[in-house]
């Protein structure tokens, strides 16, 4: 963007217009808000459950996780949480990283969130269906 770079002889208007509008962007914004609305009750439920189970031993904890309602809510939480996290971190990376590393970092973050969500869901299902 640096107008002092003598290689960049575009007019100021050309620089401001750049490559034009992408004509999309509302989808990601809306998805972040929808996942945020889902996360309000889900994370409060998780926080309350953790507080209620302070000092419980492993067996009690597994019995709680095995109940169908808990398993469903935990899976919903993992999906909403990692969707919201992936979108949020992508925005942060786009804000601060401007080199080619931006695309690589966004891909790593998105795929990492998919992987972690899957791992969490599989672990929850394993507990829910065991015993």
């Amino acid at each position: 963007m640096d107008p002092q770079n003598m290689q960049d002889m575009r007019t100021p208007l050309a620089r401001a217009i750049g490559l034009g509008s992408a004509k999309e962007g509302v989808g990601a914004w809306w998805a972040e808000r929808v996942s945020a609305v889902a996360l309000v009750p889900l994370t409060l439920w998780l926080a309350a459950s953790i507080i209620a189970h302070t000092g419980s031993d492993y067996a009690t904890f597994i019995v709680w996780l095995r109940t169908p309602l808990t398993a469903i809510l935990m899976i919903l939480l993992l999906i909403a949480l990692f969707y919201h996290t992936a979108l949020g971190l992508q925005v942060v990376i786009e804000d601060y990283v401007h080199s080619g590393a931006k695309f690589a970092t966004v891909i790593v973050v998105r795929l990492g969130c998919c992987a972690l969500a899957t791992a969490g869901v599989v672990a929850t299902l394993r507990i829910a269906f065991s015993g």
Partner: protein
Amino acid sequence: MMPSPTTIRPRPLSPNLQIYRPQLTSVLSILNRITGMFLSACAVVLVVWLVAAAWGLQTYAPVQAAIASWIGRIVLFGATFAFFLHLCGGIRHLVWDTVHGFELRSIYISGWSVVAASVVLTIAAWVAGALMGG
């Protein structure tokens, strides 16, 4: 940089973050971002905890011990505060998305309420946890 016919001394950039006054608006906004990034790390810990639990007591015990250690408790306290700050800040953002609460007076009242609510909720959560027998 040696001046030459094709290079000129660039104009200086006026200072931004170095001199701009921190205001409730910008401070709460960057805190929302910092807590969000910290909670992303906590999400990873959540998955590690679940996976450890799913694979039996032998994998679960060291994870639980790490969380229950004094350094784990400090991190957990910080995570609780970060969680409530991000939650209350997030609700404030959702209200803004309906185009309400944009008058400067409302911005400042909601901002200080977010800080107060986060402190109160964090203390309440830890008191409740202590009462539960942790």
